[in-house]
């Protein structure tokens, strides 16, 4: 792996970790517990659809999905590399992991940009 990219990938990794640690619990609580259990009134599809029309909400969703993907990529890369000791596959592993995060990021961007009214 290109050593020059490492600091950048690590920054994405730590930013993703921070996002996942701070924001995921809120979403998990709302979507997986509060709404289905009726503790809070679940918003309607139309209301949510209206919400994502706002550019700031789209940026928020983009960050919420993309950065943790890079967090996963970095962790999973080292889990395979150190954990399973697949040293000979180091480049392939890196390309697959960060590639998957890039693909997920691109897909998120595509969905968010092409959302219709």
């Amino acid at each position, binding site marked *: 792996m290109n050593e020059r990219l*490492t*600091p950048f990938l*690590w*920054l994405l990794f730590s930013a993703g970790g921070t996002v996942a640690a701070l924001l995921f619990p809120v979403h998990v609580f709302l979507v997986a517990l509060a709404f289905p259990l009726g503790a809070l009134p679940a918003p309607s599809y139309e209301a949510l659809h209206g919400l994502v029309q706002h550019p700031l909400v789209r940026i928020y969703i983009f960050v919420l999905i993309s950065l943790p993907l890079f967090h996963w990529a970095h962790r999973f890369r080292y889990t395979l590399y*150190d954990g399973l000791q697949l040293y000979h596959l180091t480049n392939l592993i890196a390309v697959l992991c960060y590639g998957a995060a890039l693909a997920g990021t691109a897909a998120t961007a595509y969905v968010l940009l092409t959302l219709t009214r």
Partner: protein
Amino acid sequence: MASTITLAVTRYRPEEEAEPTVETYTVPFRKDWVVLDALNHIKDHQDGTLSYRWSCRMGVCGSCGMMVNGSPKLTCAAFLSDYAPGPVRVEPLQFFPIVRDLIVDIGEFLHKLKKVKPWIVRAEEQPLSEGEYLQTPDEVDAYKAFSMCINCMLCYSACPIVGLESHFTGPAAIALAQRYNLDSRDQGASGRVEILSDHEGMWGCTFVGDCSRVCPKNVDPAAAIQQYKLTTAVDTLKSWLLPRGSR
């Protein structure tokens, strides 16, 4: 309370045996005894050939580190009563080559320490007539915790990356580099970052955190390494984004 306790101690006499073996010894069990006291008792009363390092008996010299029941410990601070009823397994620090019995080869570790230039680097020394380099208490606090390391190497024995990749510079040495980077008198940070910005340096660390857990001096090498990564990553990003002059 039992009056004796058994120790299963690794023995390795390279002139006699090809592989390390285990020998058991039974010693008096006393509440105020640490594992090192038990080893000294064995050496004084049972087998004078047992070899191990120690000096201060008070957690200062850093020479008595061994694996006790599988965890890296200062044996002068590991109370027998915490391991009762035994047997207590005493082995040389893992991930180091064994020289003899409980003594490991620290040559590579010393080489790694030296590699990070653990001294105050100055572009230009100020003349003696100007007196010493003064520091405020805040400037001392910036690096103080990282300067408490006694080079006991427990963190190396705890670190799975050290176990997997023997060239990894390792917790204590990277924390030591950070100790000097954070010292207001030092100007050597850019030189150190060149040495440590690779997979054998800070980027080899995957933040398992066991180094900080076993450190008897609360140095928190894991925190030092993550701080170091953050500074390096931000500096690298700046060097990509900003024109030379404004860095």
